[in-house]
């Protein structure tokens, strides 16, 4: 126990137990579904996780500051649709410009959220619930009931989901999955080591203290919403490439999956704790569940209900279990301080998070 407490923080226990849960889930589903342990299942989950992961990274940034962004599904839908329309009209657009257009549109939509939350002082859950409906409404109205279809898109985009960066045996590592992975790494490093990233934790754990030490809270909260929008825009581009046929329904209900991924991944809904890596594990868990329940032919209503249950369990267990773990760790700290140091050199301790 001492060893564990020395090297692992309570939040990491949370992530390790999720890893264990993922393994359990894979074993359970493997026993229920024929041909489950194949490269195909892996490839399937990897491709489907890409979109959720990218959006979940942005959501994590927002949640770290004690906010939430419910409009992500609508932003994904809007960017997928409008980027698709743009590309259908100008087939020669450079791929990089297309990605930039998607990210830019996402950022603008995210910035609107950010302005209302940071300077309008409206609770983020209300702002983004509003924009969830507004963005979708605009999409339905502006689209004029037209569909973006694969035949109107250039072939580089339609073939993008098949692009394989490398493969280990039959396990494909496709471009989109690697893109998601890259984003996870960039933001994990950013939130761990950059002052900017650590400030997000500071705002979430104690907004009053953050204000007292002079952090530009409003600007930082605004920034997280812009980033969440930008990443949703990127996910919109991935959605466009993956499904090719984009109706006004694209990305609907994604917010449920993303919020589930984030809280299951151990990001505290009350801000200040959790990691990007955790959110990715959460997204993988959701991806496994979705794909497996598809294979078991369980109706979408049950899948959604299960996601809801997962959110409840994750948040409840955060409140109960993580509190216990933290006090356990804190008690160990006290014992450690009380002990005379002549038992040997004092092991270096990590600062409490």
């Amino acid at each position: 126990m001492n060893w564990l407490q020395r090297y692992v923080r309570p939040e990491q226990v949370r992530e390790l137990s999720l890893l264990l849960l993922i393994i359990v889930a894979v074993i359970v589903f493997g026993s229920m579904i024929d041909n489950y342990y194949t490269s195909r299942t892996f490839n399937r989950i990897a491709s489907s996780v890409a979109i959720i992961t990218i959006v979940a990274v942005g959501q994590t940034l927002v949640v770290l500051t004690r906010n939430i962004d419910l409009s992500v599904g609508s932003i994904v839908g809007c960017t997928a649709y409008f980027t698709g329309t743009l590309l259908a009209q100008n087939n020669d657009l450079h791929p990089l410009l297309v990605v930039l257009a998607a990210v830019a549109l996402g950022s603008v939509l995210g910035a609107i959220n950010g302005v209302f939350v940071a300077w309008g002082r409206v609770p983020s859950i209300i702002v983004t619930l509003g924009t969830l409906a507004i963005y979708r409404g605009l999409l339905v109205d502006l689209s004029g009931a037209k569909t973006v279809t694969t035949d109107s898109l250039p072939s580089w985009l339609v073939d993008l989901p098949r692009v394989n960066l490398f493969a280990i045996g039959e396990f494909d590592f496709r471009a989109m999955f690697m893109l998601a992975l890259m984003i996870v790494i960039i933001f994990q490093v950013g939130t761990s080591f950059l002052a900017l990233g650590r400030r997000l934790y500071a705002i979430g754990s104690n907004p009053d203290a953050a204000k007292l030490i002079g952090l530009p809270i409003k600007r930082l909260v605004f920034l997280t919403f812009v980033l969440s929008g930008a990443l949703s825009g990127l996910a919109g581009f991935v959605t466009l490439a993956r499904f090719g046929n984009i109706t006004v329904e694209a990305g609907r209900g994604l917010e449920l999956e993303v919020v589930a991924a984030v809280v299951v991944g151990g990001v505290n809904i009350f801000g200040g704790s959790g990691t990007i890596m955790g959110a990715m594990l959460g997204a993988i868990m959701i991806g496994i569940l979705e794909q497996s329940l598809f294979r078991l032919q369980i109706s979408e209503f049950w899948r959604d209900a299960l996601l809801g249950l997962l959110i409840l369990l994750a948040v409840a267990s955060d409140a109960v279990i993580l509190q216990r773990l933290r006090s356990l760790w804190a008690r160990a700290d006290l014992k450690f301080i009380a002990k005379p140091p002549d038992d040997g050199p004092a092991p270096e301790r990590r600062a409490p998070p």
Partner: protein
Amino acid sequence: MKKYLLATAALAMAVSINHGVQAQAMAKPGEALDMVLLPKFLGILPFDQAHQGAQEAAKELENPTPLQFLGPTPENSVAGQIEITTNATTQGVAAIMISNNSGDQIVPAAKAAQEKGIAVVTWDSPIPSAEGEDVFVAQVDFSETGVVMADMALSILGEDGGKFAILSASPDAANQNAWNAAMKEALKGEKYAKLELLDTVYGNDQSEESYNQALALVDKYPDMELIMAPTSVGIVAAAKAMQDEDLCDTVKTSGLGVPSEMLAYTMNGCAPEFALWSFVDLGYLTYQTAYAIATGALKAEEGASFKAGRMGEYTITKDPTRDAGLRILMGPFSVYDKDNVEAAAK
């Protein structure tokens, strides 16, 4: 170079037999009628095409009141259709043209419309019990659809047969259910003995859901060789999914699709054959029918016939697929493959 199927001959006969039996109705053009075209939902190409056809008919009939094209969003299809029908009734429009996605749940709303003297014409998908509906404009004979799908399955899978699954739209869609049932009926025939239907799944006419359902089918049935999707959303989603997973050589896609959307998949062999009728014509004929009924030129009863503009004469008959229903049969089917899909996609 379209390949017309068996239906053509039968249809031509049905039309010609009635020709001259009864005095033909001709609707007087130029009347101001407020008419509502209600698709299952907004946002997919076939319904846009039907809208186009209806507008063409409206122009020909010189109806000065613009056509209202109103539809719900896909996830709200059932409740939305009922709401739009009820609103149109309150507004007192002259005719409502419904592609019904709500099963018999729409009956009370449709009946209320009829009681107010509104012409209720269904198209594409009828009201199963036929209550509250004047007449159904059928794109093709529904049992014919089953045979066409079984024939395409046989032609793709070959004489040795094989296993396949149906990727349908929603469990509430009357036309989808009728076609799937008709296909199962057709499969009982000696000719199709070696075809085995594994499963029927629903993608709810949503791209993402249909895409994932198609992949789930492949994973669940490793020896499946064909996905039959009688829905324009499902068929492209399935074809894209097979292409993305490099499965086009082993699992083919077929069903009902729009040529312009299917072109790429037919040319690269992912979806070697599929079928459809003209949704533009269907919209045109529906508008002509509803206009004729609303002006009183056509009575919705068995044997009544009328002239539907450029499409010629049509007669109302009993609907063989619904006990109490009346229908106008449009037809025929066009089957598309790599020889004719390019011309049709233009």
